[in-house]
């Protein structure tokens, strides 16, 4: 990774105005993504994964949201310093996004074709017929049968899986170099999930896109990501290449996450869980957000947020006790390669 990364996020802090004052949903998050690379972001609901992606896309409603600090560079250009018009020109063209809810993410009163053609014509000044042709081709590419006929369908006439394919087609219609996929398969059946992930992988190899894949499913990460960012309570807990993460997780939260993934070879006992819940935003814990649930936690953990430590090349952990696993922590089952 010598060339300038496709996407570089440095010290991103995103704040939300709430009844209890301004709270950070994302705090001091940094990561980089190279062209053609798949970065998985994992964490449980509320860990700041989606807010991170929406901050990159510039889709958070302001107010109540506000970028408090940090820089987001896309192909070297600072997105946050960019005029709104330039940033809009990137959205949907150079960077596309697929959302979690295929059922509600398409506008119910416009046809599928209309919604794709609109994207194409917003960014590439094509005649209508050429835009239509490209829309049909894109629908065909994402595996929609008889795409020319489907163009005239309204979203309510399609199944969830088909709608998500349409969403992917919209995101891909202008050949983006960066794709942000926020839990793209969570709302779908397992078989459809697998099909869509295969599709995204094919498209990624074919077009060399950089993908940020947000999920809470460790299985999806293991299969799909090159590198993984584990987030907890708005902060990065651990970042590592995918093999390193599964072979030698350093952060106790990562250990717990991997341990909590049910496997087919499991003993059939109770599901493993991480005790406790995420702290509420703005609870103002001065130290490590995971400390209240952590078996390794010491007074130092609760005093200040732990710094990022590079424990191996490309493997960073925000834990004071990364090299001191504690008995009783969920054991990480090896994920077969």
């Amino acid at each position: 990774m010598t060339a300038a990364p496709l996407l570089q996020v440095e010290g991103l802090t995103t704040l939300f105005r709430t009844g209890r004052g301004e709270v950070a949903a994302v705090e001091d998050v940094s990561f980089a993504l190279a062209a053609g690379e798949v970065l998985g972001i994992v964490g449980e609901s509320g860990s700041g994964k989606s807010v991170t992606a929406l901050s990159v896309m510039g889709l958070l409603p302001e107010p109540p949201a506000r970028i408090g600090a940090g820089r987001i560079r896309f192909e070297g250009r600072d997105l946050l310093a960019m005029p709104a018009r330039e940033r809009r020109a990137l959205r949907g063209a150079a960077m596309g996004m697929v959302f979690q809810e295929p059922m509600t993410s398409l506008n119910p009163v416009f046809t599928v074709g209309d919604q794709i053609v609109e994207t194409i014509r917003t960014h590439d000044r094509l005649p209508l017929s050429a835009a239509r042709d490209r829309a049909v081709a894109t629908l065909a590419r994402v595996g929609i049968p008889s795409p020319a006929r489907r163009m005239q369908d309204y979203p309510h006439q399609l199944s969830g899986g088909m709608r998500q394919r349409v969403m992917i087609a919209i995101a891909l219609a202008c050949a983006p170099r960066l794709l942000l996929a926020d839990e793209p398969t969570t709302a779908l059946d397992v078989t459809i999930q697998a099909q869509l992930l295969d599709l995204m992988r094919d498209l990624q190899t074919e077009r060399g896109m950089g993908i940020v894949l947000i999920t809470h499913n460790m299985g999806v990460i293991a299969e799909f990501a090159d590198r993984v960012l584990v987030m907890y309570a708005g902060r990065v807990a651990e970042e590592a290449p995918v093999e390193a993460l599964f072979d030698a997780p350093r952060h106790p939260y990562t250990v717990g996450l991997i341990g909590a993934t049910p496997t087919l070879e499991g003993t059939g006992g109770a599901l493993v869980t991480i005790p406790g819940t995420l702290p509420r935003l703005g609870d103002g814990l001065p130290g490590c957000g995971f400390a209240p649930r952590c078996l390794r936690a010491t007074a130092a953990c609760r005093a200040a947020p732990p710094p990022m430590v590079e424990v191996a090349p490309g493997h960073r952990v925000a834990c004071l006790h990364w090299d001191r696993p504690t008995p009783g922590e969920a054991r990480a089952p090896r994920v077969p390669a």
Partner: protein
Amino acid sequence: MAAYALRRLLQSIPLLLLVSLIAFGLMKLVPGDPAMVMGGPNATADEIDAIRRNLGLDRPFWVQLGAFYWNLAQGDLGRSLLLGQPVGAAIVERLPATISIALYSMGLTLVFGLSIGIVAALRHNTIVDQAAMVIALLGVSLPNFWVGLVLIVLFSVQLGWLPTGGYVAFGDDPVGWLRSATLPAVSLALLQIGLLARITRSAMLEVLRQDYIRTARAKGLSEWKVVGKHAFANVRIPVVTVIGLIFSVLLSGSVIVETVFSVPGMGALLGNAILRRDYPLIQGGLLFVAAALMLINLLVDILYAWCDPRVRIGGDAR
């Protein structure tokens, strides 16, 4: 779409029959002898007999019912006792004033109600939003006879810009029509603007929260397209229903506003008919208003289907 409209049209026929039956029954529901009630306390026996014969009340029930529908089929609504002219003619004569003021008022309501509602939603929780909602609340709360009187004092008496009352037909003098219709239209519209603004605002806020609006932004569309195309196309679905209701209220005419501005419209006509117990005219007015409301409802349903493909095209794939 055409089949849908036709189906809805056919569905309204039984309803119309029911309403006509109620209109007919009106004469039967009058306590005591309707002829005596209509004749008033000073009527002589001959006069009452004349009224009875005139209305056919001396004939058997089924004959009366048959005659009522026979006349109705020919467009004959009977003769007004008060005006001494056919009810149909009396309504047709008064209709232009009410319809033109209703349309004028509807135009004002649409322009101001929708724009105030949309702007308030886009500037949610700001001073603009709060100001818009205070205006809307005033529109809803101020009684229209009071607004009408204040407008007369302000624009007619003090400033002398507009006439205090009366009505000039549009065909006779468009400028005169505009001058005479403005104050009634504004005092009628204020309430409806308030209603429409509040409903538009809440519908818009609801729509702006939807995932597909975020999708539209993610596609890189301009804010104008996001709001003007993607949000508005969904906002108009609930709003169309309300607009239909508003228009039917305006079309029935307002007794109060027509009285305050001495406009010879439907509201004043029917108000007088009720006060003077002019039953044929009340019957005719009831039939006319009911038919108009049904027609508007039909239009609303068709518009609804036109706005919302989920209504137009069934078959949810889920």
